[in-house]
C-alpha cells in the first residue's frame, strides 16, 4: 500500500519517565483525525539511510497535534536512537494516521493489558471506552512506579478503571487470573513486550477463548533476549554476514547482496521467513507470524524482526541459478 508522506515539526519534547519521552508533532500539511489504536509512520535518518518506524498515537485526538512516545533503548535499532535525539524545531517526515489495531464496538467487556511502552495505543482506547461508558479495565505493567508513563493522565481520565502492576515491587502480573475475570464475550487488547504477549496468548488459548477476541499489536521492538550481534551463514551462497546489535537480520542480508523479500517489517506477514538449517544459540523469535509450535521447531525465522541470541545461525535462501522444469 502506498503511503503519502508529509512534513511535521517537533513542537515540544517532554520526559514521561526516565526512559520514555513524549514528542509532540505539528503536521505542516494539516491534521488528520484518528481513532484509538492508530499509529503514524516516521522516516528517520540513521546516518547511512532512511528507516521507517511506527509510533502509536497517544491519547485521543486533540489540538491538531500528534503525540507519540519514544522509548530510549540502548540496544534498539538505529531508528529509535535517532528519534531519541530529536529536538524542538526539528522536521520529520510522517505518514497519515493508519489503524491496524482498531478498537471494536459493542463488546460486553474489555480488558486492556499494557506493558511498558505498550501503553501508547491503549491509553486512547481506555479513554474512548470510558467515554462510551463501556465495561473495561486497563492493567498497566512496568518495572517500577516511576516507569509508568501518563499515570496522572490515567488517574484523571479513568479513575478506578485502571491499575498498575510493578514487577519490581510485587512480581509479574498473574495473567491467568486477569483473563479469567473477563466476561466470556469480552475482548482483550495487549500491547507490550514479547514475553507479555506470549504469556497472554498461551493463557488465552488454555482458556479456550476465540483467537479473534485476543487483539494485540507488537512493533517487535523487544524479544526474549537483549539484541546482540550474531553471525549468519548461507552455505549455498558461501556467504557469512555479521548482524550488528543495532540492525535487523534482513537489513544485514540485504546489505550483503542477498535478495530478500519482506513487506510489513514488523513480524506479522511472514513474507521474509527463511529456512533455518542450524543455530549455535537460541533463536529469538520476535514475530507473531510463526505459531508457538513452529517457533519451537526452529525451522524458519522471520528475518525482519527475529534474531539469534549471539552465535551463528545457518540459513538457506531462495536464490537458485537454474529454473529448469521437466
Amino acid at each position, binding site marked *: 500500500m502506498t503511503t503519502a508522506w508529509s512534513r511535521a515539526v517537533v513542537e515540544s519534547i517532554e520526559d514521561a519517565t526516565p526512559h520514555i519521552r513524549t514528542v509532540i508533532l505539528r503536521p505542516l500539511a*494539516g491534521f488528520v483525525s484518528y481513532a484509538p489504536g492508530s499509529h503514524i509512520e516516521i522516516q528517520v535518518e540513521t546516518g547511512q539511510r532512511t528507516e521507517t518506524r511506527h509510533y502509536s498515537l497517544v491519547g485521543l485526538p486533540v489540538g491538531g497535534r500528534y503525540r507519540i512516545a519514544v522509548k530510549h533503548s540502548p540496544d534498539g535499532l538505529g531508528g529509535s536512537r535517532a528519534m531519541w535525539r530529536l529536538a524542538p524545531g526539528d522536521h520529520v517526515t510522517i505518514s497519515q494516521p493508519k489503524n491496524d489495531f482498531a478498537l471494536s*464496538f459493542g463488546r460486553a467487556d474489555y480488558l486492556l493489558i499494557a506493558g511498558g511502552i505498550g501503553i501508547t495505543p491503549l491509553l486512547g482506547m481506555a479513554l474512548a471506552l470510558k467515554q462510551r461508558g463501556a465495561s473495561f479495565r486497563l492493567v498497566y505493567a512496568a518495572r517500577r512506579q516511576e516507569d509508568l508513563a501518563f499515570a496522572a493522565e490515567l488517574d484523571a481520565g479513568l479513575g478506578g478503571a485502571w491499575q498498575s502492576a510493578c514487577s519490581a515491587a510485587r512480581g509479574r502480573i498473574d495473567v491467568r487470573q486477569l483473563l479469567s475475570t473477563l466476561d466470556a464475550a469480552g475482548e482483550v487488547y495487549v500491547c507490550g513486550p514479547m514475553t507479555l504477549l506470549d504469556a497472554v496468548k498461551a493463557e488465552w488459548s488454555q482458556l479456550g477463548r476465540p*483467537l479473534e477476541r485476543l487483539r494485540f499489536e507488537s512493533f517487535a521492538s523487544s524479544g526474549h533476549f537483549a539484541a546482540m550481534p550474531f553471525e549468519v551463514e548461507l552455505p549455498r551462497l558461501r556467504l557469512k554476514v555479521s548482524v550488528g546489535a543495532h540492525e535487523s537480520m534482513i537489513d544485514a542480508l540485504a546489505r550483503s547482496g542477498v535478495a530478500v523479500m519482506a513487506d510489513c517489517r514488523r513480524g506479522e506477514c511472514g513474507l521474509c521467513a527463511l529456512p533455518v538449517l542450524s543455530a549455535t544459540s537460541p533463536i529469538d523469535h520476535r514475530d507473531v507470524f510463526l*505459531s508457538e509450535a513452529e517457533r519451537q521447531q526452529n525451522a524458519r525465522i522471520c528475518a525482519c524482526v527475529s534474531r539469534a541470541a549471539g552465535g551463528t545461525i545457518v540459513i538457506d535462501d531462495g536464490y537458485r541459478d537454474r529454473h529448469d522444469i521437466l
Partner: protein
Amino acid sequence: MMPRNRADYPLNVWYAAAWGGELEHALLARRICDIPLVLYRTQDGNPAALEDVCWHRLLPLSKGRLDGDDVVCGYHGLAFDPAGRCTFMPSQKTINPSARVRSFPIVEKYAMVWIWMGDPALADETLVPDLHWNADPEWTPALGNTIHAKCDYRLVVDNLMDLTHETFVHGSTLGHRAVAESPFDVTHSERFVTVTRWMKDIVPPPHWAMQYEYKFGQPDRVDRWQIIRFEAPSTVVIDVGVAKTGSGARDGNRALGVNGHVLNTMTPETATTSHYFWTFARNYGLDDPILTERLRQDVIRVFGEDEVILAAQQTAITQNDRKPFYNLNIDAGAMWARRLIDRMIEQERPVDNVAAE
C-alpha cells in the same frame, strides 16, 4: 479515511440500509455514503455489515460466501467474522493481527435495517429516525418499492418539503390549484422542521376522493391537510388526509376523515445518487390487502413522476456551474431542512482539522 473538502452528508446518523424483509442469511452488496458494503443476517437473525473489500487483495467480499456467520472471500478464502476480524488465513498457522475489514453498527427497527457509517462509539439506537407507523397495529403500511434516485438525497428532501409541486408534477392524482394557492406554516427545532398546509372546503383530487369514498361510501367536499415533518438529516414523514368539510379535523377531530402517513427516508449512495425508501401507512381499512396494493401502486406512480424530475434536475446541476438555486417563499421548509443538515455536517468536522501554517 478520505479527507473530504465539503461533506455532502453527515455520517454520525442512522441511515436506512435495507428493508428488514430484504436481508437474509446471504450476502447483499450495497453502497452507502460512498462506501461499498456487504450486508447479511447471521444465523441468529441479527443484521451484520462489513466493508465490501477483502483486507488481502481488495476483492469485494460480496463475491464470496457465508460460512456460518463468517464471510469467506471468494478469492483466497480469508474469513471475517461479523465484527470484521479475520478468522482464517490460508497456508499459515497464525492470523496476521492487523487483518480486519471495517464493520459498522447496524440495527433493525420499524421494519428496516439501519446502519451507522460514522464513529461507532456514537451509535445510539434511540437516534433511529421515527418511522414507527411501519410497525404499529393502528396503521397498515404499504411498503414501497425502493427507489434508486439518481440525485443528491437533499433534492429528495427539497421535493418532499414543498408539496406545491403536486399541482404541477402530480396533476392527475394529488394536485390541484388549491395546493399551490393555500398558505403554509413553517416551524423548526434542532432536529425537526414542520411545514403545515390546510386546504379548506375543496373537492378532493382523485387519489383522496378514492380513499374518502372507500371509507364513507360517497364523495363530499373536504378539508385537506399536509403536515410535513423533516427529521434531520434525511427522513420526512408526511401526515396527509382529508376530512368532511368543517368536521373539526383542524382542531384534532379526524373521525370524519381518512388519514395516511407517507414515510420517506433517503440514504446517500454517492453524492449524486440515493436509496429512497418509502411507505404509505393508513389508519382505515386495515385488513384490506387489495386497498394496500392499490395505494402502493398509486404512490409508485406518483413517485415515478418525481423520480424523472429529480434525475433531470441532478443532471442539470452537475452540468451547470452557476450557484444552482434561487429561492422562493415556498422553499422555506427545504431551506430550514438544509440548514439542519449543514449544521450536522459542520458539527462533524473535527475542530482540530485545521491546516497549520
